[in-house]
């Protein structure tokens, strides 16, 4: 039986309670996340920051259902995802989360349009509707007319724009970005961040970044600092 989310505000898109994640590296047990309680509200533009090994990516994996916690509970969009089966989690991620990874995360044998429409295809959206939505989102990310190009034929910045389009085309409740600017030059990074900030503003979609890029931190409205798997600071900016 799934736990009801009685303790949270209806505006919370992400809620974690006592989340811990241990894993074994060789014969040593690593405590990657050591009991994080956190609530992220709808529409936030949040950066989870911290040094390498602080548990940022692990925490992001936990709140997106890519990994399961050793202990504690995770609610996403009101659903207790810690207890979902593999297929339920796949479907939940498909319908509720958009993912942006580091650069070069597109499927190389699919062209721009096919990459962007992939999640909609999983959702069973009709071909015509998919094409309409892809054209609109590509226009929003400044890639109008790039539909037939393959990833290797466009720049790293343009690939990341395609990844953003893929993440946002289904209008998910939450967009998770793991080091989205890691392999990009500063100008491209700035441009992408401005674009995501604008989309966050225009659509009200929630963005959560894992990063140690100062440019991302500067743009964030809320900054959560993790150190050794613990939430050591939570700063909301006006």
């Amino acid at each position, binding site marked *: 039986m799934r736990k009801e989310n009685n303790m949270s505000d209806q505006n919370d898109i992400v809620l974690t309670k006592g989340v811990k994640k241990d894993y074994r590296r060789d014969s040593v047990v690593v405590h990657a996340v050591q009991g994080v309680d956190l609530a992220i509200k709808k529409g936030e533009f949040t950066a989870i920051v911290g040094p390498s090994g602080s548990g940022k990516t692990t925490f992001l994996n936990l709140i997106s259902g890519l990994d399961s916690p050793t202990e504690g509970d995770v609610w996403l969009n009101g659903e207790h995802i810690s207890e979902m089966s593999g*297929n339920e989690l796949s479907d939940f991620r498909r319908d509720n989360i958009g993912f942006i990874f580091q650069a070069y995360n597109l499927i190389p044998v699919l062209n721009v349009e096919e990459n962007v429409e992939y*999640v909609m295809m999983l959702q069973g959206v009709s071909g015509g509707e998919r094409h309409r939505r892809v054209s609109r989102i590509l226009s929003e990310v400044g890639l109008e007319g790039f539909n037939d190009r393959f990833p290797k034929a466009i720049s790293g910045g343009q690939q990341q724009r395609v990844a953003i389009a893929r993440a946002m085309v289904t209008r998910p409740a939450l967009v998770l970005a793991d080091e989205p600017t890691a392999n990009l030059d500063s100008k491209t990074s700035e441009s992408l961040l401005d674009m995501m900030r604008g989309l966050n503003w225009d659509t009200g979609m929630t963005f959560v970044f894992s990063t140690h890029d100062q440019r991302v931190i500067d743009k964030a409205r809320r900054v959560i600092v993790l150190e050794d798997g613990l939430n050591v600071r939570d700063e909301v900016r006006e």
Partner: protein
Amino acid sequence: MRFYLKLAWRNIFRNRRRTFLTGLIIGIGLAAMIFVDAYIVGMKDGMISSATSSFLGHAQIHREGFQDSQDADLTIARTDKLVEQLRSDPHVEAFSERTLSFGTISAPADIASVVIYGIEPQREKALSKVDESIVEGSYLEQNEGALIGQDLARRLEAQVGDRIVITVSQAASGELSQTLFRVHGIFRMHIKEIDSAAVFIPLSAAQSMLGIGRGIHEIAVRFDRTQYASEQGQRFSADYSRFGNVAETWQQLVPQIKYILDMTNISIAITVILVFAMIMFGIINTMFMALYERTFEFGVLRAVGTRPARLRNLIVFEAASLAVYAAALGMILGAAVTLISSFTGLDLTGVEFAGTTFTSRIFPVFALRQFTLYPLLVFGFTCLVSLYPAGHASRMSVAGALQRAL
């Protein structure tokens, strides 16, 4: 489904060199299966042909008990009725009446035990290859003379035109009967037993020596098709086993050939297993290499909502695409190699195998199964084998897969 097929097809050509090499390995395996099968079919046909067309025939009729006792008294009953029936049988292309007895042959240099066949020269010509096997002298034309095997001729130091004496025991009285013949021809049929211990004399002369009147011991039959003996052998046996006679096809007369043919099926099965083992390792190796290269990509696909089963299907589709490519390559390669080798064939003339001596070259024979069943088996087996790497990929941790590339 269509999308995943498209994706799979594109994926296998991401690393063209690897796909080509893997396809080539599988293709060579399939080509080897086609080639070996074509030669085995050819060899089977050759063995049957060597065994039946030289002298045996596709079937024979004897008096019941004659095959065991070889008693000269046991002549075929109601020969006239059987001959009439054989003449009107649309599946009988030729037949020849024979007598068969044991005796001795004496020449100035030596004496030997032999099997003496009394044959009707013209009828025998239409059925067996005795006439084509003459290496010295000529075939029996009139009811005179004798033909002896080359090995026997050497032993007796007999040559064409020499006189020989054949001695047999008469059927009714058991009295010895001797007749002088001139060697009309020396034959070499590449069948050891016949070349070293058989003598052919005119049917009437044999009947007279044996004292059996117009009696015969054997009717050898050739059908219009070799396969008729296998397909309708039982029917033939039933139709002609009358009046106390027994009709048998070559499978019953020389069962060892049938066993050998059955054994060739086992050798085909072994070839298939070896080839499939090769394919299995090729596929698993390629799929796992691709899998490790694309771990992050699979992680992304899973992260954005692809169910494990769909990822597994994608990998199976990739294997299926590879199988289609490899099967096409294998069929072209197999057909080409088999076709090229069919110009020369394999010269096994005179080679004795399981009691049968090949009397002509072996040529590969194309069969429908080589281009339908075998490619389908390769396709099905490839898909089956791919379930292992596909299952592995579908079970991998998404977070772990995404971490792999970082």
